[in-house]
């Protein structure tokens, strides 16, 4: 009997992961098509975080139907590195926050899908404007404090870039979070080692980000392959299990900028550049339609 249950669970996990793989491929297509259409936007970091956001929204977060700004009695997510809006918008649309066809309006006049995410146009799923870097962690801490006051045991998730850690406000927030025992927050750093002007190690070497967070009193987890759905899932589940221990949690997600498109990987060149027609065809051929294009 027990054997059958285990078998069933394994099959279910494999089934779900296949689904998530399909969803991730479709999200990659969305990202590529969105930035290509308006010849602007940030495909590199978006592609690098596709698996993470797909896993987070579909496997990890406790989400309610619909969207309420206050996020009572559910997990909430903030995107601090707002320039990777294409992946955020695609995942939000494909998990039901707004119609998938609206992805077609990305960066166009009168759109809810602004270049960088905002609450200003009322797009469901977005709780703060981001784009000017280094502000998301403070906001996430505030939301985590509100959950504590409200006796809401759900969690606050944050994604930030590694280059973004060069902003000083982060270190104010990192210091605060451990001092005030913000243990209902999981802050993930997209550790792709790249920023606009080049490798983070060339632009402004930050040394060991792990040791820095640890020195500031955080629990740090590393996900070695931040583009592997299984690894991300395992890492986030461990992170979740560590919550409530009077320490903030940092997940260092080692990702590949431009993941899934061969010519966009191993370079920082696609941080903020859209593919041309030819490049789009090549990129899409590497990511075949799975759930239907918008």
């Amino acid at each position, binding site marked *: 009997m027990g054997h059958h249950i285990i078998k069933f669970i394994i099959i279910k996990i494999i089934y779900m992961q296949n689904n998530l793989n399909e969803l991730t491929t479709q999200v990659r297509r969305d990202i590529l098509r969105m930035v290509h259409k308006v010849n602007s936007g940030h495909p590199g970091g978006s592609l690098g975080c596709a698996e993470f956001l797909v896993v987070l929204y579909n496997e990890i977060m406790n989400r309610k139907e619909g969207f309420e*700004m*206050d996020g009572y009695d559910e997990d909430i997510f903030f995107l601090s590195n707002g320039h990777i809006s294409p992946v955020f918008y695609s995942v939000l649309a494909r998990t039901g926050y707004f119609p998938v066809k609206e992805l077609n309006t990305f960066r166009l006049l009168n759109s809810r899908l602004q270049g960088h995410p905002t609450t200003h146009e009322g797009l469901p799923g977005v709780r*703060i404007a981001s784009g000017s870097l280094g*502000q998301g962690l403070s906001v*996430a801490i505030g939301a985590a404090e*509100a959950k504590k*006051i409200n006796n809401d045991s759900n969690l606050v998730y944050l994604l930030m870039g590694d280059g973004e850690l060069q902003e000083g406000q982060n270190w*104010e*927030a990192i210091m605060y979070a451990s001092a005030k025992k913000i243990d209902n927050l999981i802050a993930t750093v997209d550790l792709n080692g790249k920023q606009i002007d080049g490798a983070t190690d060339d632009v402004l070497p930050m040394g060991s980000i792990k040791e820095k967070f640890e020195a500031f009193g955080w629990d740090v987890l590393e996900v070695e392959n931040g583009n592997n759905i299984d690894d991300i899932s395992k890492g986030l589940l461990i992170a979740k299990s560590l919550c409530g221990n009077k320490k903030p949690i940092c997940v260092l997600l080692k990702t590949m900028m431009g993941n899934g498109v061969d010519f966009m990987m191993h370079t920082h060149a696609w941080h903020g550049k859209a593919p041309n027609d030819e490049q789009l065809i090549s990129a899409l051929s590497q990511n075949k339609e799975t759930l239907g294009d918008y």
Partner: protein
Amino acid sequence: MKEYTYTEKKDTRSGFGAGLAELGRKNPNVVALCADLIGSLKMNKFIEENPNRFFQVGIAEANMMGIAAGLTIGGKIPFTGTFANFSTGRVYDQIRQSIAYSGKNVKICASHAGVTLGEDGATHQILEDIGLMKMLPGMVVINPCDYNQTKAATIAIADYVGPVYLRFGRPAVPVFTPENQVFEIGKAIKLTEGSDVTIIATGHLVWEALEASKFLNKQGVSTEVINVHTIKPLDEKAIIKSVSKTGCVVTAEEHNFLGGLGESVARVLVKNKPVPQEFVATNDTFGESGTPAQLMDKYGINYKSIIELSLKVIKRKEE
């Protein structure tokens, strides 16, 4: 002619502290944050009564603004407290993106505004904060004139949904407005009736305007003093109505003439009712160390300047 008197002098920041304490008792959603200036902001009572609704962030104002924005997500009404300089210029982009553009219900409460902060000098005496804050879309800007009004304004902004900049100061100034007044955001208060000149003042300059008015009336000059405690949204109707009668105006504020109340009034008048205007304000300068009274005198922002410029602007009507 109504004469205003006072029995005591109190600092407006204490009005903020008293208002915040009252809010703590009546509104469970009100929370407060401070960046290592609890005593200066008079937040002790609120903290003592609501320790679980207070967040000491240390000397980290950028983080404080972000945390305040986050607290609104979960239904809280955060009041941040620090000096005006550190409430605005230091954290402009945090306020712009995480609070104003994000439409968050944060109350930015700023003490020690202007030169009347005194001996600490120009590093701490911001004279640009009204301009910085009024330029942000959707930001309400309030500069009450005395203890009672600051207390009332503090209580009133909790019921308004949206970002607010509340500006007050350090020195003890005459308390002349009613205790337990109802504060209406955006509604100017006519303090005296007159026909020769309108004096539109905000913050600490309201009492100075009343002093000037007393003197001018004795000289046979009929002055109409209006307390514009809300710089944005501005009570345009009250301003137009008054200058339609008097035909000239002096604006008075503890702020640079660039970006302050005077410029907001000038815009309204140019569009609706062009009349001669003079500006009692600092003249595109930083402050310096000194006592509040010395500084107000040196920088031309007291009753003397209001008298001088009132007589000048009345003459300009005849040109």
